[in-house]
């Protein structure tokens, strides 16, 4: 399945290492939250890039002191109707200030891309032949939002306030 990063199809260089499996030296490895929390010293010390896979019941705040050293955090949509990963992404971006990749896996449907992007998810594995086309259409379906979120778009409340201020300045 194609992996999208910021709307473009890219090669997936990350491999998930099951708990208990030996890690090869170097490379880009994703591990579970449990494994990361118990082995982070060894994992981060070696010459490799580390990512963490969160179950959608995991608390992202447990990663707070390691976020600078993480390159990828995977969040999961086991069912497209389960929106817990949206809260995890918002927490990672807005509360914890995480700057690396947040990758969505599982049932990632085109009609939900816009919501994911707004919550700070910048990569997703999606079962669509024309993944880039689908992303562009979904990401741009709306030009206005009432809420501020993890993406940089200004909320309608903020835009109205700016309009008022520019009118007052005239």
């Amino acid at each position, binding site marked *: 399945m194609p992996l999208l990063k910021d709307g473009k199809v890219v090669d997936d260089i990350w491999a998930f290492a099951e708990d208990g499996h030996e890690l090869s030296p170097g490379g880009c490895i994703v591990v579970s939250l449990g494994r990361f929390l118990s082995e982070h010293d060894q994992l981060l010390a070696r010459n490799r890039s580390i990512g963490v896979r969160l179950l959608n019941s995991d608390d992202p705040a447990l990663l707070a002191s390691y976020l600078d050293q993480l390159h990828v955090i995977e969040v999961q949509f086991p069912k497209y109707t389960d929106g*817990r990963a949206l*809260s995890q992404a918002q927490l990672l971006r807005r509360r914890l200030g995480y700057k690396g990749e947040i990758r969505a896996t599982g049932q990632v449907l085109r009609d939900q891309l816009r919501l994911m992007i707004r919550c700070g998810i910048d990569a997703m594995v999606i079962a669509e032949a024309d993944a880039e086309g689908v992303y562009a259409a979904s990401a741009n379906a709306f030009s206005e939002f009432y*809420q501020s979120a993890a993406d940089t778009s200004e909320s309608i*409340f903020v835009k109205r306030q700016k309009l008022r201020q520019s009118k007052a300045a005239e």
Partner: protein
Amino acid sequence: MYRYDQFDETLVRERARQFRGQVERRLKGELREEHFKPLRLQNGVYLQLHAYMLRVAIPYGQLNAAKLRQLAKIADKYDKGYAHFTTRQNIQYNWIRLADMPDVLDDLADVEMHAIQTSGNCIRNVTSDHLAGANLDEIEDPRPWCEIIRQWSTFHPEFSSLPRKFKIAVTGAATDRAAVRVHDIGLHMKTNSEGRVGFEFIVGGGLGRTPYVGLTVRAWVAKEELLDYLEANMRVYNRYGRRDNKYKARIKILVNELGLEAYKREVEEEFAAQNAWEKVALAQEEVDRITAYFAPPAFAKLPAVSEGFEAFKATGREQARWAKNNLRPHRVPGYVSVHIAVKQQGEAPGDATSDQMRVMANIGERYGLDDIRVAHEQDVVLPHVKLDDVPAVYGALKAAGLHASNAGMGSDIIACPGLDYCNLSNARSISVANEIQAVFSDPEFEDEVGTLHVNVSGCINACGHHHVGHIGILGVDKKGEEFYQVLFGGRADEKAAIATIQGPGLKHEEVAPAIRRVVDTYLVLRRDQTEKFIDTIGRVGQAPFKEALYAAA
């Protein structure tokens, strides 16, 4: 009434365009029903027993003539010439073709309306007091805050795939006409010890299979913190609400399983952790801008007593009765609020034809300052009518068959569509409601009984709100036969209480006679004519009423 600016307009148009694309993909077979379902549901489109149903949002129940006429036109153009006002102040069409849905959304957008979040596991259309801005006991008009919540919750990126649907109601009056204590979140405007108006924040009420009266999480939340405090509650629910069982997924179950104190701790921790970036940027100027749309209309200076109205009441018993039952006092002298009972004997409660909608639009425009409301009792309300105009309003309503004088009375029944329309239902609702209405067919008897709320649900999902009926009726299926359980003592107001099931179910034909015996018992036991049915039950207990219920020979 709130008017869209360029931003609101753009958003609703873009939504209509997006849904058109989704419907096209579905009709072409590119989108499976399984994946189309959450999309159509977030847009108010249900697959019912016979056809698709479209639920249109009427934010906090407020309409004007142009909107109501457009709703009538949609009923004619795409449906069978009628529509159904719901218990959440919305309107539903039962016979719209899927291929026509996108055109309907465009027609709605033309009058600043939509079907956004009228279904699905998201924050639903916010409801309120249908007498907001008119009633006597209002602390503050709740509608600006309803509109602010509408905007904040529309396409909220984080809270679009919640464990279950989420209903918010707001009231600003001492008397709660918005049933805020039986909502997922209820907001009751209250003045604190410093004299500032804020919100009592009530969480975890609800009906359905497991009814609960909501609990107060905070006695007072400041206006400027309302959206942030809402976000904290929503996030706790989104993260920790149960998703393993649809029937245990509402926030009421989370609150009850955690316990109020633990739930409160979660919310307060989440709220305290919000940083500046996370806070909702809602400037006071924006609150003021929205509030200005709900400024009181230009009321005329009138004497408190109208000769024309007094003469009208004296013209006959029918007029006097309608005036007594269907008018509510207004805060401005010389004005009154008019209840139009959209409950005709033999029809489904809440059903209105397109002609009736146009009549109500015309009357509202001419005599009601163009303000028309839908009440959660499935009535239509004109909040601002001059007493002097009441005779003309009554005449116009009567000509359209809309002069039923039973507002708040025994025959003003709330009922779900039941087995006749709904694929969840176990039993018919409308026919039972009709038979109970017949118990009150003698106006003198109905008046003698006075205020009485009867609620009928066709199954345990409780769309007819039987848990909060003074008398509740619940249809159940026993080996293919319809039975009806009867409940007493429910209420949805500021003294909210969940009704108690009395015992084994009655057969369809036994229900109405049993209700008659119960009502007769009330007439014997009440202290005097001013003691309502619900208060007599509260005073003497349910036992004598239960005895009457099962007293058939």
